[in-house]
């Protein structure tokens, strides 16, 4: 029996990756939830917005690398991030001007906006591919690991290794900071509150002297920042590929909704719920159990509840069960 090794194995294969992935989803979900909360539609173009912001960041990263600028152990992309955000902000503001503004003036139903955002998604899809191509791009540099599995084993003498990547650490830290900032902004500052007021009752917001254009502007700026940050962190941890970012949309939506859409705390909770659901449910406990059980009882099967084929099915099943018991998500979200 060897609890320490069991624990390390569990941490290495479940807890650490779950945390990092959860944080990536959470920041993505925050962006979706912001748009939903203030502008009242589910933005299908969010994945591609993330891709665009990331693409710009990558271009700047390459530029900096060619100038020989770096951040030491940290990825250079962090330095390029503000430029990515700025580029992304220009794009979403332009989109709002050209596309969404019209429907806002029309007071179009949310579902129309959803479909419009689908159109925007196609267009952004094209733009991203034009800007940076369709290939898989690896733009992480700097120190890859805070501690690698091998080093850990050497250090501790355990059989199991525990790897923690720099990007995982950065992601989790950034997620926490971003969530705190956003929560403070929305609930405590005047601009934040005016955004919630606007989303609640646009006409009355007008009658209170709230400038709708400003609310929309601030929302998109925040969304651009969130989307780019999420995209870059994800890309650093894994890699950048336009098509994958589109696919990210699904778990991100699931996170936002299971947490309670329109609610920033919910987005965070949702991100981690989805991430851990994916990682844990189909986990094969054989490895962990081998350490914990007496030798005679060691499992010969994989001790897996369900095969990983059902990873998505199970995480969605969990999502549905959560919704059945909490019909507006973990943290009471809005519903139109």
């Amino acid at each position, binding site marked *: 029996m060897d609890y320490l090794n069991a624990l390390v*194995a569990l941490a290495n294969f479940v807890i650490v*990756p779950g945390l990092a992935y959860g944080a990536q989803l959470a920041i993505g979900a925050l962006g979706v939830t912001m748009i939903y909360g203030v502008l009242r539609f589910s933005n299908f173009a969010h994945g591609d917005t993330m891709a665009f912001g990331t693409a710009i960041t990558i271009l700047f990263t390459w530029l900096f690398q060619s100038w020989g600028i770096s951040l030491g152990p940290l990825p250079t992309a962090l330095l390029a991030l503000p430029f990515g955000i700025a580029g992304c902000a220009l794009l979403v503001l332009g989109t709002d001007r050209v596309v969404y503004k019209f429907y806002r003036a029309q007071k179009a139903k949310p579902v129309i906006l959803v479909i419009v955002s689908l159109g925007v998604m196609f267009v952004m899809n094209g733009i991203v591919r034009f800007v940076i191509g369709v290939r*898989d791009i690896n733009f992480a540099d700097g120190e890859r690991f805070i501690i690698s599995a091998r080093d850990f084993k050497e250090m501790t003498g355990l059989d199991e290794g525990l790897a923690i990547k720099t990007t995982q650490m950065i992601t989790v830290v950034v997620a926490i900071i971003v969530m705190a900032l956003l929560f403070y902004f929305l609930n405590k500052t005047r601009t934040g509150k005016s955004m919630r007021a606007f989303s609640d009752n646009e006409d009355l917001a007008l009658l209170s002297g709230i400038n709708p254009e400003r609310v929309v502007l601030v929302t998109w700026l925040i969304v651009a920042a969130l989307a780019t940050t999420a995209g870059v962190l*994800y890309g650093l941890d894994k890699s950048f590929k336009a098509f994958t970012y589109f696919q990210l949309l699904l*778990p991100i939506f699931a996170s936002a909704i299971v947490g309670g859409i329109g609610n920033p705390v919910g987005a965070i909770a949702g991100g981690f719920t989805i*991430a851990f659901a994916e990682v844990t449910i*189909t986990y094969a*406990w054989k490895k962990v159990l081998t350490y914990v059980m007496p030798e005679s009882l060691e499992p010969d099967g994989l001790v897996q509840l369900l*095969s990983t084929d059902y990873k998505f099915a199970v995480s969605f099943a969990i999502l549905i069960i959560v919704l059945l018991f909490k019909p507006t998500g973990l943290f009471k979200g809005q519903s139109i």
Partner: protein
Amino acid sequence: EDVKIGVILGFTGPLESITPAMAAGAELAMAEVSESGALLDGSTVTAVRADSTCIDAGAATTAAERLITSEGVSAIMGADCSGVTGAILSNVALPNGTVMISPSATSPGLSEVEDNGLFFRTSPSDARQGEIMTAILNDRGITDVAVTYTNNDYGKGLADAFAGSFEAAGGTVTISAAHEDGKADYSAEVGALASGGGDVLVVAGYVDQGGSGIVRSAIDAGAFDTFYFPDGMVGTKLNENFGSELNGSIGSYPGTDSEGASMFFGLATAAGFDGTGSYSAESYDAAALLMLAMQAAGSSASADLKDHVMDVANAPGTEIFPGELAKGLELLAAGEEINYVGATAIELIGAGESAGNFQEIEFADGVYSTVNFR
């Protein structure tokens, strides 16, 4: 005459990143032939591209329909993914009597499909690759492996074929877990695979899809140190992405030590694309075979050329390599026999699929290189 050949590949969709090199390979052959002016008394060849999307049978068959009925293509080089290839074959090619040569559809199921002698492929069926993989692993004394495969007919078919032959040879597959391509995170799969354990992780996926994601995740978590890469995974992308992290890993992919392969890489580089990309060489060969068969038939019509594909591809006859298409055409025009070897040492067997020459690769110093041929 201007002969048109359809190039149906997944220009958009999950394989969009390997497609350009495949199309470029096929078009390279066509350009070569057009320039030579040797085809059917000076005919030129034009490629007409269409998007197979790789996954949407409806869109793919519609696109193919347009190619045949509107563009009037004589034959089709494609499609890429086994699923849409089957759909186009039975719904479009068969009714219209159009010849299709796929460079990359490797599903074993396609060997049995009803094709009226219209369908060929320049890649081997995965059933064959399973055996090759077993042989390579056995030779290295590896008996316990974990397998992960991309969840489509290719991945599943290959994983099944491999597991069948590996276990028959006395090996153990500790776990065989599917992964979906293009997903956000593969920690769950890697967790399960690590739990299953094994000396080597066999990754039957795509190099610029989930396959690389799995490898990344497995290395980062320290779950596996050595990997086995079948055809879909072998590409320079591996060197770029992982470099020395893969030292000691092995793999196999269609190919020979024929001069053909290196000649093709040279041509590709000159033409400005990466010839080592997956199925780029096979695409070149597919297109070349179509044109050589036309010459042999003395007609660009599918109905005529379908009977000559096997002839030009196989012995006897003068061996023809990439860049030598003009020579092949001339020989054929002179009534002589040829044996097209091409970029992949192609040999068509059975119902018209590549016999499958494989090369065994090994990683050292951050790059892979061929160490053996089978």
